[in-house]
């Protein structure tokens, strides 16, 4: 994808996220040059809402697979996996590698680590990754995902 955009002289979107306000809850918008590129910043955005989470001891490796009809729902399901991993054992995914991400399938492997309680700080508990305004859309130079979380 990046090469195609470069050939057409369209600057690639740099991976980034921004957190926005949403009534009683919070949301984030993620941009990347490719759809798989949305995965890592989306995870970082979720973690940024929860707190300042610093990786400590390594934990079991992650393998996440989901299939469906809507890539935004697949991304939501991955974020839900991150949330449950965190709540279950204070584990975070540190280096996700996207093996496949298209309209019907998402496969991610990655290293995980327990958070270091001494160097981490919590802001708030995320109850759920909602379907509210959930979206992945194509933008100039890449893709943009919108996710709202229930606080």
């Amino acid at each position, binding site marked *: 994808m990046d090469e195609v955009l470069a050939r057409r002289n369209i600057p690639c979107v740099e991976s980034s996220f921004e*957190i*926005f*306000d*949403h*009534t*009683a*809850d*919070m*949301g984030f*918008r993620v941009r990347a040059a490719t759809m798989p590129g949305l995965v890592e910043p989306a995870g970082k955005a979720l973690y940024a809402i*929860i*707190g300042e989470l610093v990786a400590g001891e390594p934990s079991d490796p992650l393998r996440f697979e989901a299939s469906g009809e809507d890539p935004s729902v697949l991304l939501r*399901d991955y974020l*839900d996996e991150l949330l*449950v991993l*965190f*709540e*279950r054992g*204070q584990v975070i995914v540190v280096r996700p590698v996207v093996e496949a991400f298209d309209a019907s399938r998402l496969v991610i492997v990655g290293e995980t680590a327990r958070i270091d309680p001494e160097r981490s*700080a*919590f*802001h*708030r*508990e995320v*109850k*759920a*990754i*909602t*379907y*509210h*305004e959930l979206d992945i859309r194509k933008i100039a130079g890449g893709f943009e995902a*919108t996710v709202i979380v*229930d*606080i």
Partner: protein
Amino acid sequence: MPNEHYTGPLERVDHCRWRIPKSYKEGMRVDGLIYADAKLVEAIKQDKSPEQVANVACLPGIVRYSLAMPDIHWGYGFCIGGVAATDPTQGGVISPGGVGYDINCGVRLIRTNITIDDARPRMEKLVNQLFRDVPCGVGQGGVIKFDRRELRDLMEIGSKYVVDRGLGWSSDVESTEAGGRIPHAEPDLVSDRALQRGGDQCGTLGSGNHFLEVQYVEHIDDAPAAKAMGLEKGYVTVLIHSGSRGLGYQVCDDALKDLRDTPRKYGIDLPDKQLVCAPVDSPEGKKYLGAMRAAANFAWCNRQIMTHLAREAFARVFETSAERLGMHLVYDVAHNIAKMEPYDVDDRTAELCVHRKGATRAFPPGHPELPERYRGIGQPVLVPGDMGRSSYVLVGQPGSMEHTFGSCCHGAGRRMSRGAAIRASKGRSIKQELADRGVIARARGRTGLEEEQPDAYKDVIQVVDVLHSASISRKVAKLRPVGVIKG
């Protein structure tokens, strides 16, 4: 992200009700009806929550109205403050979005024999003790552990299970909505994922807008009702707000996933996919109801255990027993739940599935579900405000059965987003500002006090006044905060 405004119709019915006619949107089966005064309705129009009231009116089997209380704001599928009753005999559905992620989030109030004057010299010590003893904040597990078999029993039996384990008084069960147990819970339908996520969180406060607050009775509006509840001006009370923690959040999340294709299966056309639902009597509907009831019972146990921990903290600080301190539970109410309740519909009594999402049950005097001591006054309704101003105790009135399926508001309703509240806190110490108002606050998270500061909420008086004037509920007592712990 700026919220879009609602631009559809809102027809004034009277001084406190506004109608969205069913002609507004194709698929609406009943009118929408929002309780608000003229001032609140202007604020309500600033987001799309009235649109959500109209969307809920499209649900199969919905009876009379799609309702919203004056603390309405934008939610997921249903608005917060939404009430909808569906009739299973008419194809009525159950929708997890009408309960919310935090199944049986609710509030309980404990009274004491301690006057605020006697408590003030020990207030800092008391708040510190509560902060130490009641687990709160992100990732905090409970101090009392239950194995898988015990969790199963706890979700089946509800409050009585933990009371029988010595974590409460038998009178607590009677003073809890539904006796702290919805029957027909099916703990085996609660997923392993939900158990792993929240199974160790029973007896924990959580984060966000959950809190444990020490207060005193500042003002009595209805002396006989206050007396029946053991509330007296100048005496200390404790208010606990929490729900079913990670276990309940995951039960909701699992259901939303399971039900993704169910509307298509049953030919249900929905204006918003977050209203996924299933007929109450369908296998899918029964599955969600069974798991939701188990999570609701877990939530009652959660608040019960925190009651026990709070009593122990008080006993330690005041160097006497909780019994001597008269720490009786006034009442415990759910405000995120769906329950089967009988109502008169078209000259017959129908067992309706009443969804209350950010709405409190408010049964009137004489209702058979109320404990004997409240039969004459009506059900206590607990409405938290904010940690700087006040909260309210109300009682249900006959109007609630006539107009709102026995329901009332659940809080003040947010006025500012979390981000806006943090920005508004820049350069200020909310903790100090609360201390200047006489409130000692302790919070585990770095942004908890900022996000939940008093200015982030509407004044709860505005909200309760609407329902008082609509004869849905009646004001009993105003509670003023003096100490608060938050996650």
